[in-house]
């Protein structure tokens, strides 16, 4: 599992790579917490480089959604596909968090 991030205005973009399971959701959560400057209002989680994600990833994304909602911010996802998309649908997450094909699409939609 690898993580890096960048910011654009008040949006934090976190790029995840490898597998997301219960073992590393805590690491991702801490990374996002540590990189969440006070001015950040929107979080974009880029899963384009993720090869596997189970329901622990869904729980972790829901947790970030709750935190961002508390500060009136948003969470967007990028690159959900395959079995990740099936659990994204199955869990109902798609009803509250949008998925975009590229980071650019996700960031642009925040400017509207």
């Amino acid at each position, binding site marked *: 599992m690898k993580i890096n991030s960048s910011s654009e205005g008040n949006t934090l973009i976190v790029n995840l790579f490898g597998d997301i399971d*219960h073992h590393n959701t805590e690491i991702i959560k801490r990374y996002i917490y540590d990189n969440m400057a006070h001015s950040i209002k929107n979080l974009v989680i880029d899963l384009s480089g993720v090869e596997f994600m189970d329901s*622990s990833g869904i729980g972790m994304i829901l947790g970030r959604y709750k935190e961002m909602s508390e500060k009136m911010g948003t969470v967007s996802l990028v690159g959900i596909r395959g*079995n990740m998309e*099936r659990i994204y649908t*199955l869990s109902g997450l798609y009803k509250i968090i949008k998925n975009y094909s590229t980071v650019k699409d996700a960031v642009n939609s925040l400017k509207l």
Partner: protein
Amino acid sequence: MNKMEIKFDALSQNESFARLAVSGFLLYKNPSVNDMEDIKMAVSEAVTNSIIHGYDNEGTVRIYCEIEDNDFMVEIEDYGKGIENIELARKPLYTTKPQEERSGMGFTIMEAFMDKVLVSSEKSKGTKITMYKELK
């Protein structure tokens, strides 16, 4: 018939090992990418359940697999606390650990990705999940 059995410590770093061990065992059958990904997902959910809910501290997880023609079976077993109410545990979104950001989707996902899921559990004895899938 071909069989495989492994036992490992109930530690979160072994979740990826469990997925890879089961998918590696299946490789010689040349399964479709979809079947392989479905099995990895279901195994990951069951093993994670054993690690999170089976034990407070240390413990062991056992995985046993069988392949007969195209019929695949996997058992994931722990010797921990057991599930008090299986019916409730299988309900979508139900979790005993909401404070730990658990989605409560484990059993729902196992059922969606495998053909059949059986759960047997006894308090203080442990839990065994048996899952079946016909390889396409």
